[in-house]
């Protein structure tokens, strides 16, 4: 989006799930990067104050100023904004216990207000569970994207997040089902839609490329853009933008390249 164009309202989306380990941070990093690649000014913010990981999977763990410093009143928001892949702006949280102790989650609203003036999209990586930090993240957002795994515990926990979101006046935009293996015991997209009464916007497959990318501190949409997971993230981004997404044909991996990869650990 050109800077000269009139900016419409910033969409503030909380990436939330009740259960831990569903892949919220991975979704935030990849969706943010995919959105930035497609359109507009995109910010991603790590609001998981106690268990910050967004910086880690984007290789920003050594960021000198983080959200914690801002929430502690010791830095301005703009000092904690870093440029990530494809131009996505990242506000990582710190990982020191001292920073966690000093941070006042109530200041998150001010941070969000500042970003809203700069951005078209703000994705907030909310903490798991429904503690005070999660409530703050949810209520600071205008929309909520539920991230679930296709199993009962994850989905029933998401029901509670949805109930809270509705009570804070945050619209539930839809659900991203992460780590889908298509095992026949997994709940299907239609079944998840029936339980959560929200649209499933994307089914992101379980893909070893996601782990590989995270290990190297890169979103999978950048490191393996044609992988199945990357395609799903891009499709999700397109869905949020209301545009069509054309699936890229993945490279066919021959037996020889697989043997070479196995032998020498190369990609």
């Amino acid at each position, binding site marked *: 989006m050109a800077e000269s164009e009139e900016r419409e309202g910033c969409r503030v989306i909380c990436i939330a799930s009740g259960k831990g380990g569903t892949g919220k941070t991975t979704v935030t990093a990849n969706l943010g990067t995919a959105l930035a690649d497609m359109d507009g000014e995109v910010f991603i913010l790590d609001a998981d104050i106690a268990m910050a990981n967004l910086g880690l999977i984007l290789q920003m763990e050594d960021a000198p100023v983080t959200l914690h410093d801002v929430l502690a009143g010791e830095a301005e928001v703009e000092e904690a904004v870093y440029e990530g892949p494809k131009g996505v702006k990242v506000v990582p949280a710190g990982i020191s216990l001292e920073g966690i102790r000093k941070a006042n989650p109530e200041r998150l609203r001010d941070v969000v207000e500042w970003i809203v003036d700069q951005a078209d999209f703000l994705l907030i990586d909310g903490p798991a569970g429904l503690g005070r930090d*999660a409530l703050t993240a949810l209520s600071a957002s205008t929309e909520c994207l539920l991230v679930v795994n296709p199993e*009962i515990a994850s*989905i029933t926990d998401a029901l*509670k997040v949805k109930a809270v979101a509705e*009570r804070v006046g945050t619209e539930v935009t839809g659900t991203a089902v992460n780590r889908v293996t298509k095992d026949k015991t997994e709940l299907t997209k239609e*079944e998840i839609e029936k339980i959560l009464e929200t649209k499933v916007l994307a089914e992101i497959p379980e893909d070893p490329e996601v782990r590989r990318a995270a290990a190297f501190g890169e979103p999978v949409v950048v490191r393996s853009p044609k992988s199945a997971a990357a395609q799903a993230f891009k499709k999700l981004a397109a869905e949020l933008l209301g545009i069509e997404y054309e699936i890229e044909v993945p490279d066919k991996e021959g037996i020889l390249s697989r043997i070479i990869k196995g032998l020498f650990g190369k990609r």
Partner: protein
Amino acid sequence: MARIVGKFKRLFRRGEEGTEERLPEEEAREVREEALQRALQIASKQLEPDELVETAKRDMSKALSELREYFGFERMVVIDRDGKPIGMSGGGSFETELIEALRSVFEAAETADTIIVSSESEGPNYLAVKINDSIAICETKTTPSDADIFMLRNDLSMVIESASLPASTEETDTPYVVTDRQGLVVASSGVSNPDRIAAEVSRLADFLDEHLVGELEWVKLTTDSGETLAVKPYKDVLVAFVVESDLEEVDEECEKVAKSLASSLEGLIDLTAETSASKSKAKPSEEG
């Protein structure tokens, strides 16, 4: 060379590990359907704010019961600014001292809106939330999360706002006092000193409970001028009232008044639940 062979072996082993043993089609479907049914059951128990408001408009005690069940509280009571219960659920009697202590804390700490009293042992925990002029006190075995407290505050304020006028303001021809088992007045009409009557009636019920075999069904004290003080115990409360009647008709009259009061108090408190004694006594005749 050995290193390369080793890598080949690992490569092939990984391939084998990756091939998950699939469940037979039928069994997999069964697993998924079970998960789906359980999830749908949990989904159906979610509280819909709009429906809760509608329930509260018709019957506050039912709305409170729905809230209590959803949050897994053992019992709860909502009191007004004077400490008078305006709704209760789950046998909402609490020690008067506890209620007074919580009210005092809210009064002293003006900005406080939530108090959690927790026990290290297996004893109950208490959650008190202040909503405008009302205070809800809930007994729970678990520690409520921030989200639970947030949702409770949200839903309770809707229930209190939407609820019809408490029945305690309703006037009836028969003077009555509804008290909980601790002697706290839940509702009263046409009685000049309800607190004292509540205290005496609850003490009398305790005394009778202690010294008589079986559960109390009725207490009737009749004077020679044809006045009867009747006390009808329900699950959570005691309803005391006075009737004027001949001795031969006093039982019938008491039943009639109790029924009429239960109907006019509907919405404040569940007076349909009889004591376990009367339930168990009713059984043989139903079966017979």
